[in-house]
């Protein structure tokens, strides 16, 4: 089962455990801070896990194929991992020199926003663990 206990790297497991604990206790801002800390550590160790935004017909043409095998809808592979969810209060940007940055756009978060960041980060950490570095 997907869980923080499966994370083998302590420098990732510790902030994720604290993020989950804060989420369960209703400290949503605290949870987001820990998830962000874990994600920053992840992309420091594994910059190949950064996923660029996908939906923009101003750059690469949209995919035509029906996508992956896991229930994906026509053409977009919605089952696969997505970019960092920048819409929910913590913005991801690539700065000059391809340096990633995460910026807090607000101080207060809801359960669903905090859970989004926690689940996303946990998912990406476990994906990285299972996938060799490029």
């Amino acid at each position, binding site marked *: 089962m997907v869980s923080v206990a499966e994370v083998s790297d302590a420098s990732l497991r510790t902030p994720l455990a604290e993020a989950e604990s804060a989420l369960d206790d209703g400290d949503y801002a605290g949870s987001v801070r820990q998830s962000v800390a874990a994600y920053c550590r992840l992309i420091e160790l594994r910059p190949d896990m950064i996923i660029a935004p996908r939906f923009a017909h101003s750059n690469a043409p949209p995919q035509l194929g029906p996508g992956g*095998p896991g229930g994906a809808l026509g*053409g977009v592979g919605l089952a696969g991992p997505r970019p960092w969810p920048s819409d929910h209060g913590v913005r991801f940007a690539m700065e000059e020199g391809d340096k990633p940055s995460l910026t807090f756009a607000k101080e207060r978060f809801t359960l669903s926003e905090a859970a989004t960041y926690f689940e996303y980060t946990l998912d990406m950490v476990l994906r990285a663990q299972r996938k060799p570095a490029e």
Partner: protein
Amino acid sequence: MQLPRPLDSEQWHADDEHKMVQQTLEQIELADRLGFDYVFFVEHHFLEEYSISSAPEIMLAAAAARTRHVRLGHGIIQMPPRQNHPARVAERIATLDLVSNGRVEFGTGEGATTTELAGFGTEHSEKKEAWEEATRECLRMMSETPYPGYEGTYFSMPERNLIPKPLQQPHPPVWVAAARRETAMIAARLGMGAIGFGFETPEEADERVARYYDLIRRCRAPIGKAMNPALVTVGNMLCAETDELAVERGLEGAQFFGFSLGWTHGPVQHGHDHVYREFRQRRTAQAAAAAQEPTDESARALYRAGRRGLFIGSPDYIRNNLCSYEQAHMDAVLFFVQCGPRQHEHIMESMELFGKEVLPEFVDRHTVQQKWREEQLDGVKFPINSSI
């Protein structure tokens, strides 16, 4: 309800939208007769050629009058209050539940595209918080007498008694659109069903289903007065006697769906885009450049499956792929049947064939899934209202 612009005309044919609406209702009637469990309608605004389903409550009310058994779902209502005030949502959901004799599924979501959100003045950065606030209060309005009023971030209102109340108590089963992987886990934490749950491998499905139900059991504060533990995935379906015929009838529509979905997330020229024309031009270019099919039989099978997904094919092909979802303990699979230029007659034939040759065995075995669910839900502390 997708309506691509004709390639050779600058204008819609005069009755295209009317025809599409009537054909959709015929498809729903057929689904009810065949024993499908659910019909879900999306809600989209201003997304030309991608969807004309901007008033799903009207379509669902029409469907309610023409059907008897099939459950009628919003997949989903855009809940930020600038799109839909939660009091109006509560009133429409309750009334539809009375009209349909208690068959409503209350699917909720944030909305996604700039075209839609900005059309109503909702910021991307606000939509998740607005969804959570509005959904929670809407469920209170349906289940409290009176509703005590609320001073919130995205809406406020004084004390009122929202009427009528729905037939299903304390409220219809509540869902959230879960196109993002993490949203299914948010659904679990809030005691909601997740629509659009996806995965890439059966092993991943097992893990995520287990996590979802673990979080359901640990849920401390459901968003409503009753939980709806349920995982539903979505796929594009066209069933025909042979794989080749299914691909011939169904592939282009599936590809247009994906293409037009991607288009909606980019800059658009309202009233001036020609999405289908653009799609056809790029499709032709890609087909010309595509690699030859592998000669090895198993590699070729994988290549073909990758091109068309899991539910465009013969009854055997679709059945085999559905079995993998059944083994992963998906509660239901929703099918997109109408997309792109797919013909109404082919959709009807597809549904008939699926209903006759594939559906019955899964209906018969659903008791196995229900028993598994009972085990997963052992220990859940809150009331459950689920149609699964």
